[in-house]
């Protein structure tokens, strides 16, 4: 079953242009499922990078505009889109020229997979 889920993520990554990696982690950045190409930056897949989003999304949800769902971080060479699926966090890493709207639209397909992983993480 884990292999099928990885294959699904792999297909999703390859079918979207300029996507370098997709990682599903818990709120501390510990990976649950991970698919990444050779060009994906290793630093962006570390727990101490991914866990900053957990804190940021909690605080952003207190701004009076409702719960925070996604965050887009655009850097010089890459862009990173985080999805809040607490208790899980999904991180999509792509090149800086990738279509950001397309990356954010991956939410629907990722949600279908994440809904089957809720029992894996202790809430």
């Amino acid at each position, binding site marked *: 079953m884990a292999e099928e889920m990885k294959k*699904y993520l792999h297909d*999703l990554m390859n079918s979207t242009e300029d996507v370098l990696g997709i990682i599903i982690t818990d709120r501390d950045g510990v*990976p649950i499922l991970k698919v990444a190409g050779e060009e994906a930056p290793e630093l962006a897949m570390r727990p101490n990078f991914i866990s900053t989003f957990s804190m940021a999304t909690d605080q952003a949800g207190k701004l009076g505009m409702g719960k925070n769902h996604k965050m887009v971080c655009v850097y010089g060479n890459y862009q990173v889109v985080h999805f809040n699926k607490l208790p899980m966090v999904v991180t999509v890493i792509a090149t800086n020229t990738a279509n950001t709207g397309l990356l954010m639209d991956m939410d629907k*397909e990722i949600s279908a997979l994440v809904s089957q992983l809720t029992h894996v993480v202790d809430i």
Partner: protein
Amino acid sequence: MGCCCSTEPETLSQDGEANERTRLLNDPVSSTYQVTASPSDYGNHYSSSATKKSDEQTALNRILQQTASNIIDVGALEYHTLEQHEYIERVRTYNQRLNTVPPQKIPNRAHHEAQLLCDVSAAERILSAQPISFADFNLMMSSAQKVVAALSHIKVDHKEDLVVPFGIP
């Protein structure tokens, strides 16, 4: 008709019956310290005040918790650094749980509604590219028409018989 300030002396009702001059509210000055607690009332009074205190405390705690959850304090965020052994243990736990996931249907990525260009990975890049020039387009059209015309003129020119007898005695 009465007036607010009358010069006539106030005449209270001698029977104690309510009339137009009977006070609706108690006199605030004289009624403050008139609560006398009899010995039989001590127990009830104490339990009701204790209940009231605990209710107040609960309400205060709830307000405090709500405020603490709503407050945004970026400087006070505690960053919990995962230790290596804890990280490895969690990864192992998640892998075990992943393998015990009951087989469920992986959502099919094919959509049911009709989608144009769904097999093209970067359709927006191709569609937003510069279109070909009008000269190129005309060249393509004229060349295709010439090819179609040339194809229609292909015909078999029958010169010899198809069946040829061999000269075998």
